């Protein structure tokens, strides 16, 4: 894979290649548990938009083990999470990644879909249900409203959360430290930098898988963990 031509910026073609690699390596995952972390990932070729969906994790507000479901379910009615984490009532969190034509870096938009409309795109939803408690302070401490705000989705034109890209190039530049990287590595690095606070991350198996597909098993590769 060729290195990104003008880092920290990404072209539409490079973005497309990186997303395709990510989608293919996800689809090639054999291991069911790691696959289950994301429900779905796809590339909308018409819009050049990467779409990732996963179940909304509600564990930030609950101390219960996710596996303690067996046994009789006689619960207080305050146990909303348990009640709705079954079957198709599970709320999903959607991450849509597009390349900003103005900033020429990827931009993250995200929102929750829920049959019961419990998670409208508001700052309350953001801080109570999406951002992990340890990231709340650093997220709130930027800009007028915080580093994450609400804007209209560029394709669907409805309010969703987003991370403003005006600092992304700087962050990527700093993480690169002058190295040449492929567009796929760029995308992983970007997800690592932008996604962490909003519960978007890439499972290790997927990365290993992609490396095998891209480079063959013999080459030695820098670990990604530092990102």
């Amino acid at each position, binding site marked *: 894979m060729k290195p990104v031509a003008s880092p920290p910026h990404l072209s539409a073609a490079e973005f497309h290649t990186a997303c395709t690699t990510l989608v293919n390596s996800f689809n090639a995952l054999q291991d069911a548990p790691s696959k289950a972390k994301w429900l779905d990932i796809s590339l*909308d070729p*018409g819009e050049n938009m990467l*779409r990732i*969906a996963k179940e909304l994790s509600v564990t930030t507000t609950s101390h219960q083990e996710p596996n303690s479901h067996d046994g009789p379910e006689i619960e207080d009615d305050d146990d909303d999470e348990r009640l709705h984490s079954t079957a198709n009532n599970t709320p*999903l969190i*959607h991450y849509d990644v597009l390349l900003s*034509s*103005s*900033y020429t870096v990827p931009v993250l938009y995200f*929102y929750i*879909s*829920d*049959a019961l*409309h419990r998670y*409208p*795109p*508001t700052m309350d939803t953001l801080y109570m249900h999406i951002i992990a408690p340890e990231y709340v302070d650093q997220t709130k401490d930027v*800009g*007028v*409203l915080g580093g994450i*705000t*609400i*804007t*209209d*989705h*560029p*394709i*669907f*034109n*409805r*309010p969703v959360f987003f991370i*403003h890209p*005006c600092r992304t190039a700087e962050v990527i530049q700093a993480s690169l430290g002058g190295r040449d990287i492929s567009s796929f590595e760029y995308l992983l690095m970007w997800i690592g930098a932008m996604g962490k606070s909003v519960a978007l991350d890439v499972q290790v198996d997927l990365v290993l898988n992609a490396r095998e597909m891209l480079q063959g098993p013999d080459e030695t590769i820098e670990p990604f963990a530092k990102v």
Partner: protein
Amino acid sequence: MDVTALLRERVWSASIPLEISLHTADCASYDAVPYLVHAPRLSYLAFLLPKLHAFFYTSLIYPDVSPTDAWLEYDHVPLKWHYPLGLLYDLYSGAEPASSHDISAEHVQVPSSEDEETPPWKLTLHFSNYPKDQLVQLDAQEKHIHDLFINNVKEADFLRNGTGKTVMSLSKEDSEQLWEGVKQRDYRRFTRVNNKFLNPQGATLRHVPMRLYLPHAASPQAGNRFSSSIHVQEDGKGEKGVMPGSVRVVQGLVPLSSSSRQRQTVGMALHTLLPNLFRNTRGPCLIAAPVLHGAILPLDAGLEELIRTTAYVDGWLHIAFVML
């Protein structure tokens, strides 16, 4: 005063007559009078909503509703309070846009204010059933509108100069002046800061901050996929979850100066951004026309002149498309 400054000021002072009535579901009386106002094209409905709450307060069924529950609707379309009013009007009012063929050459083609006879745009005010899936909810401190405004200003700056430096290096006082100038409708304060954006030191303008708003009818591919992943209420929002009044927003890199130093026109920009609708740089599109500040944009208008005279307060040319 030079022509640019003159036009700039006329665009600034353009206004739209509004007649706003409280929705019957929120109104306790049968004879609540509507609120009449000439609202500036360049302003935001966000600034009007608290005033509307104060005005209709005594007519409300539930007087304890918050001003932030207020939202405006026209013909079943919830109006985005963070779009400039002029854009909303051009998109949804159905008013016939002015065209350069209509008026004789000696008239200035940018309307300074709507004609005396312009009928008011009749909007409905709601205080219940906030359409959270479609509208960002306003907050009491106006932080959301400020945030959306600043983000647009930053992006416009980035496009014009290739860096966001002008905005980033703005003093705290200047950025407050800019925002207060917009909020208080203080032309002098606003222009002092805005001129820094338009005349960045040691740089030429590179790209045009330009957004195109296409009605759903002109962009059949958009709008359906969101509803497949987000759950949309089935209460009369139209087929396949397409909201009434939904628009497709299009933007991209539109250069201000080409390598040949050719003057860049509206026609060239539209051909770049919407090649399927504008198949060449001069011929008009047969199904939709670009409208800015109530007038059909001539395709041979120069982009740099437009930016300097007719941009909205966030620095963008927000161009509505009306179906022909």
